[in-house]
């Protein structure tokens, strides 16, 4: 299988000290990757580099073998839950339709095919019956699903999610992962996550972001590893990845 995201010597910083230094990473098609690491470690930055919203200081990042901005049509992005004006006058379908802007012509109203795609996306996330509901009146979990529908409406091959479960109840979170598992049958998924509780369930591999960025197959991520990722002694970890000799502090 070909790689969906490839980083070679990727380095990036917001002006001062780089947050990401010399990252080498390959994410194969069909993978379900969770990006983990402490706050401020550069998880979201890595996602924004993949989307082409940020440009690397050094090295390259390619998505589907091209610079990220050329592959945007093949990417669906689900941002961190936005703090939204509770009166903002849009329904769930209006939001899902925004995912069609990249494919629709510049001028004029939505075409029937855009509406069909947006409705199909809402159906896929289980919200077909909520299409006409005021977006702000939906529950947190439903809003997050609408944002996934918006990402799916453009027909992506890669889904990028930024902390999609932040602030959701545990039982809603479980349903949410079931949905992602189902989507993973046809899409590659890269998800930035604030917690690690799910790892053994649906995620296939874990990208650990710290001063170095490393990939673990999920099967090798034990409780001990998780403890280590957040500041423990890395030499205890058994894994096959390309760790630097002195270990890494994720």
């Amino acid at each position, binding site marked *: 299988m070909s790689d969906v995201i490839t980083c070679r010597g990727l380095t990036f910083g917001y002006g001062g000290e780089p947050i990401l230094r010399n990252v080498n990473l390959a994410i194969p098609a069909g993978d379900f990757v969770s990006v983990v690491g402490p706050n401020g470690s550069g998880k979201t930055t890595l996602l924004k580099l993949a989307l082409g*919203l940020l440009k690397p200081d050094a090295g390259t990042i390619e998505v589907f073998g091209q610079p990220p901005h050329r592959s945007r049509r093949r990417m669906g992005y689900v941002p961190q839950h936005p703090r939204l*004006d509770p009166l*903002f*006058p849009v*329904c769930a379908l209006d939001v899902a339709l*925004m995912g069609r*802007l*990249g494919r629709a012509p510049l*001028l004029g109203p939505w075409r029937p095919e855009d509406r069909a795609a947006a409705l199909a996306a809402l159906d896929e996330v289980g919200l077909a019956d909520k299409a006409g509901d005021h977006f702000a*009146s939906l529950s947190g979990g439903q809003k997050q699903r609408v944002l996934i529908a918006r990402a799916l409406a453009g027909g992506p091959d890669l889904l990028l999610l930024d902390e999609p479960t932040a602030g959701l109840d545990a039982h809603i979170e479980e349903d949410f992962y079931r949905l992602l598992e189902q989507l993973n049958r046809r899409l590659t998924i890269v998800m930035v996550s604030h917690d690690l509780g799910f790892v053994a369930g649906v995620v296939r591999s874990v990208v650990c972001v710290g001063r170095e960025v490393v990939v673990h197959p999920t099967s090798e991520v034990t409780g001990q590893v998780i403890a280590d990722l957040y500041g423990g002694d890395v030499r205890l970890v058994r894994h096959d990845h390309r760790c630097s000799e002195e270990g890494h502090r994720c």
Partner: protein
Amino acid sequence: MLSETLAAFAEHRFLQYALLAGLLAAVPCGVVGSWVVIRRISYMAGGISHSVLAGLGFAHWLRTVHGVQWITPMGGAVGAALLSALIIGWVGVHLRQREDTVIGAVWSTGMALGVVFIALTPGYTTDLMSYLFGNILMVAARDLWLMAGLAGAVLVVAGLFHRQLLAVSFDAEFAELQGVAVGRFTYLLLLLTALTVVVLVSVVGIILVIALLTLPAATANLFARRLGRMMAGAVALCAAITVGGLVLSYGPDLPAGAVTILLAGAVWFAAAGLRRRTS
């Protein structure tokens, strides 16, 4: 007394023009006002509207002192509004930080320039009052044509780019990923706001414009859950409020612009109170 007012409106052409001006202004007011409210750029709209005084004063000075007759006060207002929109837009798109400082600077230097030009111009200083607080009774047939043209242009452009403007207002980052030129649409919205402000200045004056631009839209937003309905509601409310303000102010001989804004404020307060009680 109401029948006397109605009789006056039937008889006098200037009152009919004033009514027509109010109704014409309601259309861009409701549409662009809705964008201003959901995009949260009332303060930018305030900066643009106050700086319009520079254009009005400059045109007034050129006409009176230098005999440049081709420039009209409204033409000067259009120029000043568009220029302020470009300055504020440039800061918003390229600098982001300290945006409010620049808006404040445009706001007050624009007014100061206008005051200086008016002081340099011999003649009645009552012009200043009518610029600041509006004088809908002074609207002439030629102004009506210009207002109709501006309103039409604003509507066509806003209609053509409705989807992009909505996406940028809702989530600019996502819109950018969809290939929408977020910066350009920020400018576009500010330019539409500038033209709308010029239309409204004839109705309520520079200082009161923000209220007429935002209060009917904010009131409609309390009840509408889709943008189209919010805009339709805002247009209807804006029309009712400008006509109401004109009619109510005529009998007791009060300034129409001020009465219009008081009415807009009263409607918004009442609606917000009602909404709070029912929800």
